[in-house]
């Protein structure tokens, strides 16, 4: 898309800003339509009822809305992690590992460091950030110095991280009976900031606000700073960037580290949410990392888009849990999400159509 513009040297009007949200909305409409058809096939009598839950379940009550924000928080962070890496042309498929390693950092501080008092949750989140960053440093270093494809090293570090976290949990903060980590101290939970009064009965906490702030921070970093420009430039063309005096090794490493830090914070935000979440000792990769890929793609790899994409997926997930009341399997939500992402991939075609339309209109005017 962008390479084509560069190659032709012909400046075509940049409609990506307009086409972005429009194509996402069209994709969402198509996804919902297919979801409705599936509901009709599986049980025509209750299809309308089920569909109403998908559409309205997330705003059924203040509690549900609060839970939408709570579910959205970790996947916004993993989505942001993947999106940030995408913007620098790295495919961080390792958000899953960075997420759980970050969660380990948060839980270790949350259980062990009770002497920190009311700063415990802050230190816990910082630990999550550092742990996540360190875990992403491995693929970053390997990519920068040894030219190891980051996709493969991220897949490997996902598994290594999962086993390592299980091992450390089992030997330090392990609760034998439930086969999971010990509960964190009360001071380690992120403050509610009055959000629990606003959304009574839900699991929401200040973590959502932190996620929003980090999204804004990522936007500024990528689009308004020299450092962000260097990261992106390096993503477009490693060799041209070196010629322009940018240290490309440093850029690749920093991009991965920041991306990993974000996924790590996501782990911290979820496991310090005070919602009764523990690290289960089982050989399963954290699904939040893979949901993050969906969120990033749906959000067009834009930090603010990622925020809304995370909210959307959380919203229909909450609706989907209600849909079970009408006797439907929750996997229908995954089918809808998959369809939405599939059609979001057609953005380029939609953009071209829009462009042709605009150009024709412009031509008539002159």
């Amino acid at each position, binding site marked *: 898309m962008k390479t084509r513009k560069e190659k032709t040297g012909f400046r075509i009007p940049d409609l990506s800003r307009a086409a972005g949200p429009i194509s996402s909305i069209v994709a969402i409409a198509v996804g919902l339509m297919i979801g409705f058809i599936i509901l009709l096939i599986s049980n025509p009598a209750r299809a309308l009822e089920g569909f109403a839950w998908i559409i309205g379940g997330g705003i059924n009550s203040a509690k549900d809305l609060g839970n939408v924000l709570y579910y959205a928080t970790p996947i916004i962070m993993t989505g942001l992690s993947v999106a940030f890496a995408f913007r620098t042309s790295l495919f961080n498929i390792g958000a899953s590992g960075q997420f759980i390693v970050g969660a380990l950092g948060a839980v270790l501080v949350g259980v062990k460091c009770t002497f920190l008092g009311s700063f415990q949750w802050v230190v816990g989140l910082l630990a999550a950030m550092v742990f996540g960053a360190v875990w992403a440093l491995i693929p970053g270093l390997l990519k920068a110095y040894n030219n190891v494809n980051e996709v493969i090293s991220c*897949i*490997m570090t996902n598994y290594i991280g999962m086993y390592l976290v299980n091992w450390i949990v089992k030997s330090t903060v392990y609760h034998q009976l439930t086969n999971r980590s010990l509960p964190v101290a009360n001071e380690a939970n992120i403050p509610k900031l009055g959000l629990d009064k606003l959304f009574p009965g839900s699991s929401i906490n200040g973590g959502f606000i932190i996620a929003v702030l980090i999204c804004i921070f990522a936007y500024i970093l990528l689009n308004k700073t020299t450092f962000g420009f260097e990261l992106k430039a390096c993503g477009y063309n490693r060799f041209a960037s070196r010629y322009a005096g940018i240290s490309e090794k440093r850029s690749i490493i920093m991009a991965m580290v920041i991306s990993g830090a974000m996924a790590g914070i996501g782990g911290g935000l979820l496991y310090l949410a005070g919602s009764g979440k523990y690290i289960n000792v089982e050989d399963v990769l954290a699904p939040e990392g893979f949901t993050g890929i969906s969120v990033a793609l749906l959000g067009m790899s834009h930090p603010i888009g990622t925020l809304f994409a995370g909210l959307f997926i959380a919203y229909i997930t909450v609706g989907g849990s209600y849909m079970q009341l009408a006797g439907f399997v929750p*996997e229908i939500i995954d089918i809808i999400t998959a369809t939405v*992402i*599939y059609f979001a991939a057609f953005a380029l075609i939609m953009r071209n159509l829009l462009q042709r339309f605009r150009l024709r209109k412009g031509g008539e005017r002159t």
Partner: protein
Amino acid sequence: MNTLFFLIQQTMFFTIPLLVVALGGMFSERSGVINIALEGIMIMGGFCSILFISFMQDTMAGQPLLLLAILIAMISGAVFSLLHAYASINMKADQTISGTALNLMAPAVSIFAARMIQPSGVQQIQFTNTFRIAKVPVLGDIPILGDMFFQNVYLTTYIGVAILIIAAILLYKTKFGLRLRACGEHPQAADSVGVNVYRMRYAGVMISGALGGLGGLIFVVTTSTNFNATVAGYGFLALAVLIFGQWNPWRIALAALFFGFMKTISATYSSIPWLVQLQVSGYVYKMIPYIATLVVLVFSSRNSQAPKAAGVPYDQGAR
């Protein structure tokens, strides 16, 4: 000696599905389409063929049933991959996006469909494993070699080896292979000499779909007796094996063997006496395959042999 035979047999169980799926991915990427959807394709192929086995096992058993299931797995995988082909070839979509969509779609659809289709209404599909061959006639009696490769095996092991040989010949010794590779390296050049890039890329993706679906069946049949809408991340591991193997069939085979052997050690260390005596935590063995792969990559990734045009949609009008 028995330990050695056991290790080799186990290694085959881990290696063959990785090998088959990674070879599938190779055809797709060599034609210029990145296929991150291997995981989803494996699940889809596994789902359709295991469902077939569970419905047909009252009337058939053994190798004929397995052969039919293989056919079903390959067809369903190829059909499912058409979604990816259409998005990335006709619609010029970002290939990572449509691949991710397929990965998300496959488990959801197979859980949904399993609950709808099965009379019991559960998402797991049970089947009876009647496919293991205790001993291949004649060949199984060869000393040592017979113990290693012709006892306690599945037919799919030989099919996997055959696919490797066919894939290597197809890619390097035929007109089709040359054209396919050209489309992945420089599609404009291929087009200028009359190769239909779109058709070649469809062929590449569909071969990857067929082999991915087959890999899904092989994985489930050799490791389990029920299908629960997952192939345990093997599609992603196959992707790693593909990159590890530098998009070359023989190197992919080596990479799959290496990873399969490491995986075998980590899965069976408790039945190997001298490893138990080391008194190391089981988690160390579980991590070894992944760490070892990273270490090997550090020394082998200097020159990447990735197809130059992989991931770039082909636009006939582009200059």
